[in-house]
């Protein structure tokens, strides 16, 4: 099954993007792109914790890194699309915006949102990552041996 095309891959990628977006950014971009549609809560925003698991070096055995605070919610738009959101931190308003974007991405507004919200979030995340990587790279020290003690 793992070799097949993951039907949920696009949705996974935008939900991941929204989960990692900085505070208030997704909401601001959504409001800039369109008026928020009316919706019904399936699960009002609630705060809890989830265990983060990790592997040392990406190959070791998995271990529990620690718990992280998560806000989640689910809502439905008129006509059926259901949006879910899991956001890191205690940010109910951001969870609402992320769930709205997730639901709207399943409607014919997807094109507008992709251009106005997701592509911008992606670009900002890439820029932040490059900035951080650049700062880290500036501190790199290259050790090399001038003379090897061979005779």
């Amino acid at each position, binding site marked *: 099954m793992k070799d097949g095309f993951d039907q949920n891959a696009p949705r996974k990628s935008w939900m991941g993007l929204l989960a990692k977006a900085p505070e208030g950014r997704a909401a601001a971009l959504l409001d800039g792109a369109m008026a928020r549609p009316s919706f*019904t*809560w*399936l*699960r*009002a925003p*609630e705060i809890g914790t989830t265990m983060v698991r990790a592997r040392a070096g990406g190959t070791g055995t998995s271990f529990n890194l620690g718990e992280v605070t998560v806000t989640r919610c*689910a809502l*439905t738009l008129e006509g*059926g699309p*259901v949006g879910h959101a899991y956001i890191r931190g205690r940010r109910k308003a951001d969870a609402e915006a992320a769930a709205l974007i997730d639901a709207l991405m399943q409607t014919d507004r997807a094109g507008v949102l992709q251009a106005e919200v997701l592509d911008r979030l992606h670009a900002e995340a890439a820029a932040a990552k490059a900035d951080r990587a650049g700062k880290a790279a500036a501190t790199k020290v290259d050790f090399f041996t001038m003379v090897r003690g061979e005779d």
Partner: protein
Amino acid sequence: MPQSQTLSGGFADPARQSAHAFRSVMEAMARPGSLHDITGAEPPASLSVATGAVLLTLCDTDTPVHLAGDADCATVRDWIAFHTGAPFCGPADCMFALGTWQALAPLSAFPTGTAQYPDRSATMIVEVPQLSASGATLTGPGIKDNASLSLPETRAFRDNHALFPLGLDFIFTSGSRLAALPRSTEVR
């Protein structure tokens, strides 16, 4: 749309409604035979409102649930999974069992706890067609003189009481009403 159906029907105001529902269940258990109204949940059609509210209040990811008979359908499984996260299991490992009285038989399949841990027993959520304060006579802790409750039968509850301090606890639901029969209650 089927997905919205299984995802809707949770508590609209979870903090207050689950507190009220918990109070109803606690009162029912503390005073066996008394009838309580419990509302707020809108489970799929095959479950009663009271059953839905009890599940939302008592079940979470640590409480395996056994669905017996007609209750074991995809809609109910999806609804419980989304709203409570409870895992599903067979009768021998469950902490909650859900179904009609006929579907839940035989009761010997369910855990009654151990001498060291009598609390490791199953709580049965029994859907009954109607619930009224008439029928079998109940006496025991939480009942001043005696109480009456329309039970599906009496033999099984007498046998269950004989196991005390082990045994099963029962919650009866019908529509939006609920009554309980803990293992400590004597049925005549």
